């Protein structure tokens, strides 16, 4: 009897607790919606809405003054078969991505490894290497324009000390894009910090075990640290590709797309089409094509990630 009463009481308590949880859950949901609503409303009206409108625009002819006129796939036809600058800008952009992404990742990882070591003043170094990433981009690009100046620039001045006659960095079609690629390494601070966090997350016990087994520093880095860092590399790779494909400000400020269109990137074609030539429909089509490229590349990397990205859950 007593057991029955206790059981009933326990059931009642559990029932009461269940009711309390459900009410709390409901309240949590309301709080969540209340706090997320400003962002959600902003996202819908300021991001998703304009995106969908631009998708419609990509099938229209629109000069931003008169009403848009639906023209079907004409903008896309123009893109692939008519526009002389489409393939040029795409080629320049892919050239930039092909070299700047691996270069920035390698430099960021290298810096992170160095900054992960234990020595005095490393916090200062960490701040120093991260600082350029937070400075306004245009100011940095203008400074680099002066550094690259073939007559009065500091880079050629230092090269002359070792007997090298520096090239016309920004005014030679061969060197203009490499100059911009070199300049972008200034901004690897963000990726560096993420790598640093990843390195610090690696359990010391694993490294110790490897050392005890007689592994060298290089082997530890290549066989243990790098695989454990692969999720971070994966993240930085995707973010870097997305950012690099949208490059615009650097060549705009430093070379205006020249010399001889050698640094005329896809972003500049989108800008010119919209704001110089008043072809907003065509510019929208270009923008959506870039979106498809970014989406495709990201999906390829995600699909292939199982082959090279270490995952604890996969191991289990």
């Amino acid at each position: 009897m007593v057991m029955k009463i206790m059981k009933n009481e326990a059931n009642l308590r559990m029932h009461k607790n269940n009711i309390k949880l459900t009410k709390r859950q409901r309240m949590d949901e309301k709080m969540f919606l209340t706090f997320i609503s400003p962002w959600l409303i902003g996202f819908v009206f300021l991001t998703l809405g304009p995106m969908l409108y631009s998708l419609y625009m990509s099938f229209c002819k629109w000069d931003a003054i008169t009403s848009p006129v639906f023209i079907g796939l004409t903008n896309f036809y123009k893109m692939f078969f008519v526009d002389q600058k489409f393939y040029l800008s795409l080629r320049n952009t892919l050239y930039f991505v092909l070299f700047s992404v691996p270069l920035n990742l390698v430099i960021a990882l290298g810096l992170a490894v160095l900054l992960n070591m234990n020595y005095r003043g490393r916090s200062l170094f960490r701040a120093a290497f991260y600082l350029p990433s937070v400075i306004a981009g245009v100011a940095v690009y203008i400074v680099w324009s002066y550094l690259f100046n073939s007559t009065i620039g500091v880079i050629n001045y230092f090269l002359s000390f070792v007997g090298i006659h520096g090239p016309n960095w920004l005014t030679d079609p061969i060197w203009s894009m490499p100059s911009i690629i070199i300049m972008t390494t200034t901004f690897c601070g963000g990726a560096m910090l993420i790598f640093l966090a990843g390195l610090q997350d690696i359990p010391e016990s694993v490294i110790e075990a490897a050392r005890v087994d007689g592994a060298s520093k290089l082997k530890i880095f290549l066989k243990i640290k790098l695989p454990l860092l692969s999720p971070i590399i994966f993240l930085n790779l995707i973010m870097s590709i997305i950012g690099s494909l949208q490059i615009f400000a650097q060549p705009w400020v430093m070379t205006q797309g020249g010399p001889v269109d050698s640094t005329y990137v896809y972003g500049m074609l989108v800008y010119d089409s919209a704001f110089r030539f008043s072809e907003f429909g065509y510019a929208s089509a270009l923008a959506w094509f870039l979106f498809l490229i970014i989406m495709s590349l990201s999906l390829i990397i995600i699909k292939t990630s199982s082959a090279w990205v270490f995952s604890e859950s996969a191991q289990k």
Partner: protein
Amino acid sequence: MKKTVKLLSVLLAIIILGSVFVGCNSSNSTKKGNVTLTYSFYGDKTEIAIKQSMIKNYEKLNPNVKIKPTYTDGGTYPTKLQTYFASGTAPDVIALAADMYTDFAKKNLFLDLTSYIKSNGLQNKLAKQATNAFTLNNKSYAIGYGYKTYAIVYNKKLFDEAGIPYPKSDWSEEQFISYAKKLTKGEGTNKIYGMNFGWEGTEMMVNFYNNKPAYDAVNNKINIKDNDVFKHTLTLLSDSISKYKISPSATESKNIGGGFETGKFAMAIVGPWDIDGFEKLIGTKFNWDIVGMPKSADYGNWNCGLRVDGIAVSQNSKYKEQALDFAKWLCTDENNSKIFSQTSVPTLNSYAKSEEYLKGYPKEFPVKYNKQIFIDMQNHCRPIYWTGVWGKVNDQISKQYETFLLGKISLEEAINNMQINCDKLLLNN
């Protein structure tokens, strides 16, 4: 406690939501006879300050009118105008440049001022460019308050050192080349070039002598191939770089630390907007003056693009009468003409021909340059086209010319490519 938290959360959400809509409200509402006009304009730092001072003056004279200004630099101004019209928030009074207004005017976005100009006698009070430059299909869409031509500025100190007489308005193209060669000296960081054509030279290239231009924007025709005048222009400009070595290319000039004001060039093409900067940056370091463009015996005077700045009224303005009054005041008030003359040649005839304008200079200006030159250059000017398909045509011409300068193609190939590619651009437009 829970109720308080809930209340605070809702309040916080409302504040955050509300902040999204703050600043979205703009109006030129009236308040018992008071009118607020919105006025958009453009310019560099000096021009913006000038125009803002005029607004204050007008408000003092008309206490019932408030002017709400909005401005940006000249390069982004057309984009800003597009945004205004696309969103239906066009200002009442709109500053315009003659080389960017046609696309808007064709869509009837500005008030037709033809009868207003006639009834107020403005065609007689103002220089002909003031209205001609903004006339399309016999309708005038803006009133000009200032115009800008180019001239050649020369460094008197370098001329004296080289023992060359100062150029005169009737100087020839041969004299120009001869002077520039004698003025070019030095090497490396100490090199001084005889002439800087700059971006102005590239712009002038398409119609250098106002005779057989590279393209006819009115009739939509490209005239590059078999155009001996255009070929001569390209030859002259490229010879200045490679043969006579008196001028750097547009891209090379980026490597030079400085411009005319630092003594790197003995001559350069300038507009009235450069003068204020020269006076302040050069100061008393060296003396200088301006002269008109030289003349070729075979092809005529060098020509430059004509830039006219004017004021239009939006077709959808709710206060057309007040907007027109403000526009007219901006263009015809003599005090305004004095102020505008700092960066352009005033269109108000009575002021532009006066001794006060021609011989008057701000106290802080050490150099009393010859203002008549910019006025005389009106006779050697022509319209500029750079919007829409003509922007692409200009880009194509510049690109082929640049490729030729780099030695990658011959002049004939460059001309051929320009014709073919520009024809394609017009065809696909």
